[in-house]
């Protein structure tokens, strides 16, 4: 869906040919990232992430459930993203569209595949009761790059989360009490960094307009040089050389964002 006018699209491309962007950033430059944690009283953990004018709210809820038959000693993860109508005139209500499914699934795999959460430690009683971790992502304002914002928010919220109290005798989750125990998380933060291609130029952290005119994108789930998930999107291909460049960009960006995350809690 192309809502950005054609004249703007052509101008964005022309600027990029000269290594320039409308807001004065360099192609590989991120907007300012602001991470706040503990922004919700009723969630087990939460974070608000702003990248320029883009904003997402991420909450963690946990509940006790029966484990899946193929992983009787492991907790579960469920990631859902909702693109709220309040966050953009272009979002429509009704059934979740592809964009929200994509955000949920890309963030899910970034966290799951990196083994960030030690699911075995979320087992209460093997084969009977395990913790289920829900990561719910809501867009508050969409000015591009919701995907990366959602990934940063998910990690910040997980780091912020405290496991609720569980009464083993009664087999009940005590909603009013927290165990004050943090989630079993790995030390390095997995992040999903998406790199976009417009014409023959590659760039990071697009604004809404830039994202509209992008022709290819590559989401890279990375944690300290180890890549654990990846997904290419959109209608144009990338050359092997561009692919290598994108990997390098993701590694550098991870370092910057990681230090921000470490300071956030």
């Amino acid at each position: 869906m192309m809502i950005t006018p054609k004249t703007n699209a052509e101008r964005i491309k022309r600027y990029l040919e000269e290594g320039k962007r409308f807001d004065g950033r360099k192609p590989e430059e991120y907007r300012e990232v602001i991470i706040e944690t503990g922004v919700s009283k009723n969630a087990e953990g939460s974070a608000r992430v702003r990248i320029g004018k883009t904003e997402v709210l991420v909450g963690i809820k946990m509940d006790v459930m029966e484990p899946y038959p193929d992983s009787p000693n492991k907790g579960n993860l469920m990631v859902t993203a909702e693109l709220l109508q309040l966050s953009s005139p272009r979002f429509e209500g009704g059934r979740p569209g592809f964009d929200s499914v994509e955000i949920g699934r890309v963030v899910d795999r970034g966290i799951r595949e990196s083994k960030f959460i030690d699911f075995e430690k979320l087992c209460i009683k093997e084969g009977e009761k395990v913790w289920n971790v829900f990561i719910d992502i809501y867009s508050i304002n969409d000015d591009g790059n919701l995907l990366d914002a959602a990934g940063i928010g998910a990690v910040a919220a997980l780091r912020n989360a405290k496991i609720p109290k569980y009464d083993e005798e009664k087999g009940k989750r005590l909603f009013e009490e927290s165990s004050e125990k943090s989630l079993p998380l790995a030390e390095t933060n997995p992040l999903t960094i998406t790199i976009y291609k417009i014409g023959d130029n590659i760039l990071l952290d697009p604004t809404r307009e830039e994202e509209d005119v992008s022709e290819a994108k590559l989401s890279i789930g990375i944690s300290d040089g180890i890549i654990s998930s990846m997904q290419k999107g959109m209608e144009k291909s990338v050359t092997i050389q561009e692919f290598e460049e994108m990997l390098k960009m993701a590694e550098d960006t991870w370092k910057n964002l990681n230090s921000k995350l470490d300071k956030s809690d």
Partner: protein
Amino acid sequence: MSKDFKRPDGRKFDETREIKAKVGIVPNADGSAMFSFGNTVAVAAVYGPKVMHPQHSQNAEKGTLRCQYNMISFSVKDRIRPGPSRRSMEISKITEWALEPVVMLKGFANQVVDVHINILQADASTRCAGINAAAMALAHAGIPMKNLASSVSIGKLDKNLVVDLSKKEEDWEEGEGATDIPITMAPGGEITHIQLDGKIDSKQLMDVVALAKDANEKIYEIQKKALKEIGEK
């Protein structure tokens, strides 16, 4: 990477399972094809170009490629609930993206080309088999294309790279476990699709891309041969 690594089914590291490709299997369709990697069997049928419905989805500048990936309920051991899932929605979109760089729909304003992909039997690498079948079905339907696209999954089992993952390999748990990397390319090595689940560093990932390029060249020849066979009939 060790070249003497033993795969569960005895294949060499750069060997795919037996590939079968056949064009023209759904008489009603404008184009159709079957593609299989061993026990993974995909069929694809193309309908169109035809006027896009609903009307608000029409694009006045070019035709739309619309792919639908679906696994039939008994394609795997535990029954799959019929109907779209988050996973199938994602693979449908990924398939569109994998094929869009090679199809040329400029002359088909307000029209749609529908590609229906069904996995009849699954033993991993289903999206790759589906994309291969879809590319052939599009060519068979006479849709203008720059070229075919070919798709293969590269796996990293512990530290070893292998071509065309089976389900048994996908579930590898020893050492560093399994990393699954499906890659689609246009001939020459342009990447039109890549996904990854697992754990790998960027240096080895470049080896993965090189392996995929070789494997996809072989798959491309098989797809071409199947298309020529139908032309000779």
